[in-house]
């Protein structure tokens, strides 16, 4: 077993859905001004609201454009509104509404969405562009936790933070490993090095951190010491942490459950080319839409089809190392 850093204790796969549920109930008691703005797609912690605070439920029906603006208005009046659905609906269907009636005035709206390229619902619901289409929006914080522990902490931190946040949930993915210990200090805007390495670094986000861990274990057996940097805040991006690992290894692989066009890979590429030249291989969905796969048996197959599994990461790490040698980049 590879050597991991503090606050990391790799454990069995644990779904993150329950973490959001638990966190929502916790924050709803702490903040009596949280309101849930429903778009006929449920919400983590909804049962608690039905039982304890039905007056804080606002149901908009299948009308995401209206829902987003209602949320903005409620925030303008001092509430902390949550909107939730699949990302194609809550975000893409209401993209301009989120821009105009939430982000322009930095209204304190929390957007949570099921957003991943893998699932059983097909091309309409299994989204590749979730990160790419939100990263360019000013005033928006984007969170994408790697495991259940981080999901709960990030969820709570999102509410403590005053301003609009997009909390991405890769529900339909195969459950990620339990990665962090309970005392892991999550902070918005901070990347965390799960493992240091001197040969290469995988910069991963969300479920792909689990695949990175699997890949690092395989590479360890082959004699390669590869680090993992967990990016759970896609925006604002922790550039300092990226520069640090880039200087250490000069061979970077980015890994994300979404398109490589405009996603985490491109964000990291910008940092590398501006501040810390390093060989880069981007792992993510190529320029294509998703398709359905039966849960959970076939999701691994779909993941491999997209080239997002551990064995793809292993190949990509070796490719990055070869590029580094080819580019004659020197490690610090």
């Amino acid at each position, binding site marked *: 077993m590879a050597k991991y850093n503090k606050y990391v204790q790799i454990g069995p796969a644990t779904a993150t859905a329950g973490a959001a549920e638990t966190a929502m109930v916790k924050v709803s008691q702490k903040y*009596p001004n949280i*309101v849930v703005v429903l778009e006929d797609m449920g919400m983590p912690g909804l049962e608690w609201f039905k039982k304890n605070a039905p*007056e*804080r439920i*606002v149901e*908009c*029906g299948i*009308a995401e*454009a*209206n829902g987003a*603006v*209602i*949320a*903005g*208005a*409620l925030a*303008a*009046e*001092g*509430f902390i509104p949550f909107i939730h659905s699949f990302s194609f609906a809550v975000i893409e269907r209401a993209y*301009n*509404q989120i*821009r*105009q*009636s939430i982000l*322009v*005035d930095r209204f304190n709206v929390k957007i949570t969405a099921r957003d991943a390229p893998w699932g059983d619902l097909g091309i309409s619901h299994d989204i590749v562009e979730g990160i790419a289409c939100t990263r360019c929006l000013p005033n928006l914080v984007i969170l994408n936790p790697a495991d259940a522990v981080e999901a709960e902490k990030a969820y709570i931190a999102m509410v403590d933070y005053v301003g609009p946040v997009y909390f991405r949930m890769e529900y339909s993915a195969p459950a990620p490993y339990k990665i962090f210990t309970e005392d892991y200090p999550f902070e918005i805007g901070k990347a965390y090095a799960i493992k240091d390495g001197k040969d290469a670094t995988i910069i991963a986000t969300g479920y792909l951190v689990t695949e990175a861990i699997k890949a690092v274990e395989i590479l360890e057996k082959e004699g390669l010491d590869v680090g993992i940097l967990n990016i759970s805040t896609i925006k604002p991006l922790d550039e300092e942490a990226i520069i640090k690992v880039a200087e250490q290894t000069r061979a970077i692989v980015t890994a994300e459950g979404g398109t490589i066009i405009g996603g985490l890979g491109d964000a990291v590429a910008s940092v590398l080319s501006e501040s810390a030249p390093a060989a880069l291989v981007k792992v993510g969905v190529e320029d294509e839409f998703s398709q359905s796969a039966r849960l959970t048996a076939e999701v691994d197959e779909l993941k491999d089809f997209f080239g997002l599994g551990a064995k793809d990461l292993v190949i990509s790490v070796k490719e990055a190392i070869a590029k580094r040698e080819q580019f004659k980049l020197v490690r610090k």
Partner: protein
Amino acid sequence: MAHSPEVIAELEDKANLVRRNIVRIFESSKQGHAGGTMSSVDIVTALYFHHLKLDKNNCDWPERDRVILSKAHAAEAIYAVLPEIGYVSRDMLDKYYAFRSQFQGHADRWCTPGIDYSGGSLGQGLSFAAGMAKAEKIHTAIHPPTVQVTTANYPKLILKYNPAYRVFCIVGDGELNEGQNWEAMMFAAKYKLDNLVCIVDYNKFQLDGPVEMIMPIEPLADKFKSFGWDVREINGHSMREIIDTLDLVNNLYGDGKPKCIIAHTVKGHGIPVWESVHLHYSRLEGTTIAVKEGREIYG
């Protein structure tokens, strides 16, 4: 209670003052959304100088009535009012469209004291207004009022009880093409937002031409009614009709129905050169003629 002719005459003078300020705005900016601004002047004047519950010393007073200008391109009409209330300096009238100005191209909550909604992307204002009205209902549900507001401490309203604030939303006729308005209408009726008043500035023209040709919205009153709204139709340039109707819908508070006032107006009203062509947007050379006309009429 009918308002005296003096009250009406005073408000009509105020409307002319607002028009004069708009002419001054156009004199320096040389361009702007002329038609929809002028058509809404009487409505805006009636609201700000007669009807709204405002604190002249505190534009953020939590219990102020909200004004959501969904047709935010007509911001000049409200910009012309704000210095008269004292929320911004009069110099701003010469800084419309200017870099770092409080008077942005479209109404902007972030930049301008007294503006409640950053608009410009049409069709969203009614949702925002409904959200604010719903917020008032939730606040009241969580914190029931302990002091009943009576006619003694707020004499303009003859009510058994009052909402903490009301929300007035000014929408354009053209923007009713946007489907989101109809989502907001369903929402407002569902949540019985009787603290919400939607005023349609029905000037009959949108950018590409007459509303009835671009995308017919008639029968508009019937549509609102069928969505569960209380609907009134008025002449949007008759000060008496405007303030009487605003008072009337105020007094209906408690009936559980959102209110719609369809105000029939004239695009470019008050400036003959704009009025004659139902002008949407005034540009450089046209503005010079309009400003000259405006100076002659409003001083």
